[in-house]
């Protein structure tokens, strides 16, 4: 598919002698929410980390909006700038910067990576936080946030540099059913805005309700499409 935002082609990841991923192939188009499903330990997180260039892979190819990752060690950060601008990642444990408020978590990359002024960055951040329903929590510290709030701040932080591709690792893990629904709607809105979303989850109900497509990962198997 020439227009695909993300192309994963026969991705293989090996830890020591154990194959964690064996020839995973999938595509995510702009405007599409794809759920990557499978039981724990099947390599969902590993796949996201490989796309985000946080970990090396041994065979296959990853292309994000024209930026190509090849097998071998993770390239130095200086050679990953273009990829970093294209991929946002929301960690399962949200991984907010604990010494910064919610607002500063979101503005940090805007100011120091993209060189925006503080006022500009804060305007963008406030808008993002408000759109995710956590505008009122802007001055809170991470440890003061509930699981759902922290996750939405983490989404805002990942979206701040405006990457076309957003990766999410188990976004519903810390959420009650009502929040799950709200999150699903938020993801749909992001997709409608033209982004591609790849969501690793083992929550079948969430995937069925909110994903355009489901890719199932089974232990040691080539991924099949759902």
């Amino acid at each position: 598919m020439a227009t695909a935002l993300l192309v994963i082609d026969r991705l293989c990841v090996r830890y020591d002698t154990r194959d964690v991923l064996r020839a995973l192939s999938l595509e995510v188009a702009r405007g599409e929410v794809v759920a990557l499903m499978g039981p724990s330990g099947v390599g969902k997180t590993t796949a996201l980390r490989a796309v985000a260039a946080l970990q090396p892979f041994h065979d296959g190819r990853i292309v994000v909006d024209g930026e190509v990752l090849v097998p071998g060690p993770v390239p130095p950060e200086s050679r990953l700038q273009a990829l970093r601008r294209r991929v946002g990642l929301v960690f399962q444990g949200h991984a907010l910067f604990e010494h910064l408020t919610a607002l500063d978590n979101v503005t940090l990359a805007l100011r120091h990576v993209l060189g925006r002024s503080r006022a500009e960055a804060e305007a963008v951040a406030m808008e993002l936080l408000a759109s995710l329903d956590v505008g009122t929590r802007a001055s809170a510290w991470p440890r003061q946030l509930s699981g759902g709030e922290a996750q939405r701040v983490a989404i805002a932080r990942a979206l701040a540099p405006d990457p076309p591709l957003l990766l999410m690792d188990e976004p519903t893990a810390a959420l009650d059913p009502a929040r799950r629904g709200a999150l699903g709607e938020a993801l749909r809105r992001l997709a409608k805005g033209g982004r591609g979303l790849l969501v690793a989850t083992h929550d079948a109900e969430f995937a069925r309700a909110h994903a355009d497509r489901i890719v199932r990962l089974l232990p040691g198997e080539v991924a099949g499409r759902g």
Partner: protein
Amino acid sequence: MRASTGTPTLQPVIVARSLGVTGLVVCFLARLAAQGERPPLLVWGGDAEGGAPFVEADPADPSQVRGFDVEVAERIARGLGGGRTARFLQVQWSAIDQSVERGDFTIGLSGMEDTPTRRARHAVTIPYFEFREVLAVRSQDRDRVHGLADLRGRRVATLGATIAYDLLLAGRESTGVIPVSYDDDVHPYSDLVAERVDAVLLDHIIAQRALRRRGGTGFVILPQPVAVGHYVGVLARADSVLRDSVDGVLREAMRDGTLEHIFRRWGVWDVSQGALFDRILRSGAIAPTAGPPPSPAPAPAPAARAVTAYFPSLARAAGVTAVISVLSMALAVAVGLGLASGRLYGPGGLRAATTVYIEVVRGTPVLLQLFVIYYGLAGVVRLPAFLAAVLGLGLNYAAYEAEIYRGALQAVSSTQLEAARTLGFSEAQILRLVRGPQALRYALAPMTNDFVALLKDSSLVSVITVVELTKQTAIYATNVGSWIVPGALCAVVYLAMSLPLAQLARRLERRWGAP
């Protein structure tokens, strides 16, 4: 370095610092147990670090001591009768007065000077040796310097808490010399040759010994003495009856020639000893030496006055302690940060080098490091004492700081660092914006801890002639003859410096931490 005697010791001051405390205790107990079977003892205290010809470890059998004070002690023990034998107890020289009053031993003999203060506080024997306070100067200065008056603005070294030191303190006002106090009587002369000081004022026996050690070169001893003093035995104040018996023995030894024989054997006999013996045997009374001739004998002052009199010098010493601690800590933080980042971010070679530095510096005593930096490196680079103190403490604490920073940096969760990478930050930015600020918060409490420890460890720099708070307190305590008031005052000053620091650290922690 401190000389080791190999003799079991029980020193009130040094014990806590030195190695093998347990060994000493076991040894001491063993000796106590053995004591029952032995003939009566005269336990005498001296400092073998003072060396020959007073007291030194016997090169043939380092568990034994020898020297003229050893033989004087043996003569006294014999003279007291009852088959008494003399037994030596190692005591730090400056603590002999305090130790004899505690009852650690019966009589202190180790070139103890006859001063009015000592006579007022202890039972002091008649003098048994007359010494001259002589000036030593570098050979090239022999024609220019003839006395203290020619040393205006120059550094003159001596042993702390001696008549010579009092002479120099008095000379600070009258002749403008700068007194430099040492803990031992060897390094003043090596520093004289190394041009760290311009003259040394000490007993002629010590000066002559130092000159012999250097093969008669490097410095000269001025012929004209600055003052004359006497060595005496020191007993506890309550032992005045025993003291009178000891005086009787000493007189007898002067009459029968045994003292002369001892002094001749150790090469310290001269005409002035004969004259001293004559005077004592004729009249019995000799006036003590009270430092500089015009200065009145320091009468035991009332406590309140003693405190106020010492306040300026204690304040000055507290200032030295504070400045050394702050500068050393600043150095330790800077070097520690470098070491920690080298260990975490550097290439393999650098990682190995920083690890070696940290382990070597943490694994050896800071006292040893100070000696090496000040005395050991003197041949290569002649550092001023203050700079050597800051370098020694700073480089030592840097090793501890480095480990704190490494631990603190590693305590920042790796997913936060990965999150920062996915946002496009460079490694340097991650360190500056994410990892560093959080690590600083983790490091703050252990850093405060280290700074308080450093504040107190700064007392160690007195071994390289820097007079800081603890040293000044010791001088003060020796002077007033008690540790109670000086000790309390010193503790208050240390607490006054460390408590606000802990307070500041807590406030910073609150401010930096999430509420």
